[in-house]
């Protein structure tokens, strides 16, 4: 970290005119992105390419977690809701607010630079909230998406803008809320607008120049493979949704990206889009160099309930039924947690986690849901999970030590109504709506799932108003840390689910936590409301011995 940097560079000493041209060292190297050991640095949205949000830091343990203390609070200058996971590299934190980006001193929360860009006027639906989930870094360059779907490249050392690429056209309902993913010299982005009649895609841009390398349309052009799952002689495919609003994960050994897609559009009206509606609500295995599709798996064919499949596809190497396999695990918005073989896309297992679920009788041996006869109707149909999903984009975490998969879930139902409408730019395209009945007793849960047995080891029911959208992170000491449903940051023992510590942030979290270390001190960070909070053990507890080990 900082100290190491110092030894290798000449921050130091004499600086004179000729040094002005000095080329700085890379902040994030491709090698760092390939590492699955996360200690001081958290160099990408999910920490590493696997998406498991697992830190190898061991300073904070079940024995001392009760002594955690809040360290500093950062208040974003534009009072939007923070949904970003910050990145930390060499003691500097990189965070997005609403279209703007910050570099902070990760030890104090003080601003080092602030890239300001006004929010875009005239956007609709999700994009009009101007939320953003964070940045990607490669070399000395930082990448972020804007509310109106531009990819910005900033100099990570100053926050100055190098280039700005608008990557959508022909439909102003596009927006973007995600964090980019950097793979093999390319920056990958997606869009929001899947409830507003846009056509989804994943696009890759050269990290140096911003030149588009490839674009994979998640709703195929008529005549292309998959187009047979849409009505023939209809232009609904141009408004078919399948947006790509969360960063994917990546397996370097397979050289395959796993990118997930959202609901078909219009959300609740299936009559104008008969068929399975590929590749909506799917995970796509893509070649990062060409954008070619290797395989796909669709979780919810012909979705009628806004069950985006954009939850993180976590990459795990584990025994499955006695054989070591490369797995992909996802807790899906439709109420089931899935295990796939990520080499082939073969469906292996689905387990229902939603306590109340009535849209499917189950998942068949091929991985296709067996639907009940419930569907949105003119007068309204109560269906579960709710439109907010059995879970959602907030991060799950896989713990290498406990070998359990942890994720937050929401038990709730909605009344879904349908009415056929025409697509119109400047208007959402739900084709009516979903309502929450006051008689529902919604609850959030933190779940510990054992993929080897297909069983839940424990479930921790949360108290609160079910408005939280906070994810989880876990540690090599077996801790699981998450934002609970009562505006708190909470730590539990991952083995037992026993709560160890909590802190009231006073604002509802809509973000996923992460961990980093500076000078031998381990931190956790999570955004809540318009602020970012950090936590660590007091210096008196951080033993000098542990300090030495950390570096």
């Amino acid at each position, binding site marked *: 970290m900082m100290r190491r940097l110092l030894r290798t560079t000449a921050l130091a000493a004499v600086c004179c005119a000729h040094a*002005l041209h000095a080329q700085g060292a890379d902040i994030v190297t491709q090698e760092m992105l390939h590492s699955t050991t996360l200690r001081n640095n958290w160099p990408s949205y999910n920490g590493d390419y696997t998406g498991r949000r697992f830190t190898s830091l061991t300073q904070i343990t079940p024995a001392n977690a009760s002594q955690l203390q809040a360290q500093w609070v950062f208040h974003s*200058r534009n009072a939007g809701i923070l949904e970003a996971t910050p990145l930390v590299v060499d003691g500097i934190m990189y965070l997005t607010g609403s279209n703007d980006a910050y570099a902070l001193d990760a030890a104090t929360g003080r601003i*080092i630079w602030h890239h300001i860009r006004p929010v875009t006027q005239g956007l609709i639906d999700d994009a009009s909230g101007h939320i953003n989930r964070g940045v990607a870094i490669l070399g000395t360059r930082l990448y972020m998406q804007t509310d109106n779907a531009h990819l910005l490249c900033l100099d990570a050392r100053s926050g100055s803008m190098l280039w700005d690429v608008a990557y959508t056209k022909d439909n102003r309902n596009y927006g973007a809320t995600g964090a980019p993913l950097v793979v093999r010299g390319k920056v990958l982005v997606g869009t929001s607008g899947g409830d507003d009649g846009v056509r989804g895609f994943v696009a890759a841009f050269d990290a140096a120049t911003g030149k588009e390398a490839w674009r994979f349309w998640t709703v195929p052009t008529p005549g292309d493979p998959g187009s047979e799952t849409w009505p023939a002689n209809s232009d609904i495919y141009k408004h078919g949704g399948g947006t790509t609003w969360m960063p994917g994960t990546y397996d370097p050994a397979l050289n395959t990206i796993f990118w997930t897609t959202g609901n078909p559009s219009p959300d609740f009206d299936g009559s104008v889009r008969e068929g399975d509606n590929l590749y909506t609500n799917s995970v796509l295995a893509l070649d990062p160099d060409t954008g070619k599709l290797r395989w796909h798996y669709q979780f919810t064919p012909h979705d009628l309930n806004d069950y985006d499949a954009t939850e993180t596809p976590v990459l795990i190497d584990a025994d499955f039924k006695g054989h070591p396999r490369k797995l992909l695990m996802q807790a899906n918005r439709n109420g089931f947690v899935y295990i796939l073989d990520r080499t082939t896309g073969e469906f292996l297992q689905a387990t229902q986690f939603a306590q109340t679920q009535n849209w499917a009788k189950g998942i068949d041996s091929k991985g296709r849901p067996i639907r009940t006869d419930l569907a949105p109707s003119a007068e309204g149909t109560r269906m579960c999970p709710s439109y907010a999903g059995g879970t959602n984009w907030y991060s799950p975490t896989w713990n290498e030590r406990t070998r359990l998969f942890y994720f937050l879930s929401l038990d709730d139902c909605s009344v879904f109504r349908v009415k056929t409408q025409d697509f119109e730019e400047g208007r959402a395209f739900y084709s009516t709506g979903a309502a929450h009945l006051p008689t529902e007793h919604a609850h959030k849960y933190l779940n510990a799932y054992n993929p080897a047995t297909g069983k839940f080891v424990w479930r921790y029911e949360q108290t609160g108003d079910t408005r939280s959208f906070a994810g989880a992170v876990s540690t090599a000491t077996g801790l699981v840390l998450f934002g609970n449903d009562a505006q708190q940051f909470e730590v539990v023992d991952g083995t037992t689910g026993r709560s160890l510590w909590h802190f009231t942030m006073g604002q509802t979290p809509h973000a996923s936590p992460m961990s980093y270390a500076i000078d031998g001190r381990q931190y956790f960070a999570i955004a809540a409301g318009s602020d970012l909070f950090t936590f660590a053990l007091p210096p008196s507890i951080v033993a000098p011995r542990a300090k030495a080990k950390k570096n």
Partner: protein
Amino acid sequence: LQIIPGASVLKAVTAARGRVRRSLSLFILLALASAYKLHAQADTIAGGKTFAANCAGCHGSDGRGGERAPNIATARNVMSLTDAELSAFIRNGVTGAGMPSFSFLGDRGITDVVAYLRVLQGKTSEIKVTGDDHAGRALFFGSAGCSRCHMMHGEGGFIASDLSDYGSGIALERIRGAIIGPESTAPTGSEVVEVITVRGEQLRGVLRSEDNFIAVIQAEDGSYRRLAKAALKKFNRTGHSLMPAYKDTLSAKQLDDVIAYLVRSADPIDPATRRLRTGAAQ
């Protein structure tokens, strides 16, 4: 009301010595020009109607750009065009950029719409940029060495500020003063500090963040160093940034050229951003 004094105004202003005299003469000249314009030919009300009917569809009713056409209200490169140049664009269109010819408006109609555009631009004077912006660009990225520290439209260094929109909304004389230097104070976040740690390590860098306890400095290679102030042997604020004084380095012509480049190619500043930058929004 819009006021368009001729170039002679700016020359007169530039020639005036001393701040009081300068602002006084500016005031008098503007007042004269204003009185003159009251009797001028251009009709901004008619121009406004013409603008709404012919221009607003693409450039937006406030002229700040839309889906199909750029910002012509606050973009410095448009603001700095003369009335004659603007009229020519309107009369002839812009080939290849989708801007059609509006010659059918006639000379009178074009004069009116230019007058109205000046209202949208909020201009009280025409900006007379005398330098050669192409030569200025060559200097910026070449012998003047500006780009080693400063960025302009995505090219250049990181240790000093991005100047892409610096030339928007700033008086030319302030740009000139900032370049010839020496600066009176280092802007926040750009001051050079010199440090000696307890271990005798000597460091020099730009002070990026500071409280009572911690200072973060950035070296010219981009790396950061966080320092506990209590544990320093020496913490010297130099009071200046890395910006050298160009008084004896650039000729008057070269200075004009660099200024022309900064102004002519400046990005427009969004008014909201300007407030944030000055801290007025806090």
